[in-house]
């Protein structure tokens, strides 16, 4: 039954592509940061969705043990990778927003076309 993994993979891929469209077509720095956030969410969904299989339980043993095969749990390694990736994404977004605030204070604009290099250097 691969319908679900297909839906997840294609949905995550289209989320990435919508974020890429937002990054390519906007000149507003704030919208660029929003597009980067969309792309990041899409990549995280794709990594975890690639390890999905039907009926996979959350990888938590619980306090009441039964005799269970290890194969009945979902794969924990992509989840661990994505767990750290989300927090790093927040740090990167915050740094980008701080740069945007400085850009606005320096050049009175957040448009990437109107911002000239000489103005920044003054």
């Amino acid at each position, binding site marked *: *039954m691969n*319908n*679900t993994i297909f*839906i*997840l993979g294609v*949905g995550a891929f*289209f*989320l990435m592509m*919508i*974020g890429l*469209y*937002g990054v390519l*077509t*906007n*000149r*507003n720095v*704030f*919208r660029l*940061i*929003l*597009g980067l*956030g*969309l792309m990041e*969410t899409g990549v*995280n*969904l794709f990594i*975890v*969705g690639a390890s*999905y299989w*039907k009926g*996979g*339980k*959350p*990888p*938590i043993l619980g306090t009441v043990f039964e005799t269970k095969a290890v194969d009945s*749990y*979902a794969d924990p390694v992509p*989840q661990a990778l*994505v*767990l750290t990736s*989300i*927090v790093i*994404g*927040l740090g990167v*977004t*915050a740094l980008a*927003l*701080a740069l*945007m*605030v400085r850009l*606005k*204070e320096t050049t009175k*604009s*957040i448009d990437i076309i109107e911002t000239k290099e000489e103005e920044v250097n003054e």
Partner: protein
Amino acid sequence: MSAVNILILIITLVMLAGAAAVVTMKSMIGAAIMEGIVSLMAALLFLKMGAPDVAITQAVIGAGLSTALFVMALNRAGIDEKEASDE
């Protein structure tokens, strides 16, 4: 199509619609809040995939802190909504 499939399909479609709204919306605060909705739907998808740790982290960070951070940065920079047209 089982019931789980239909649920995942609906959540994915809502998420993609929210992402399209982020890209096309005029108002910047509205776009930031829409990004929060996309993160919330992604958290639901993580939960359906059997990853509750990632779902909690995505819900707290993506839908809560990140949206507040966007709005606070707009406010701190003093960006007006009127100059935000990108055409």
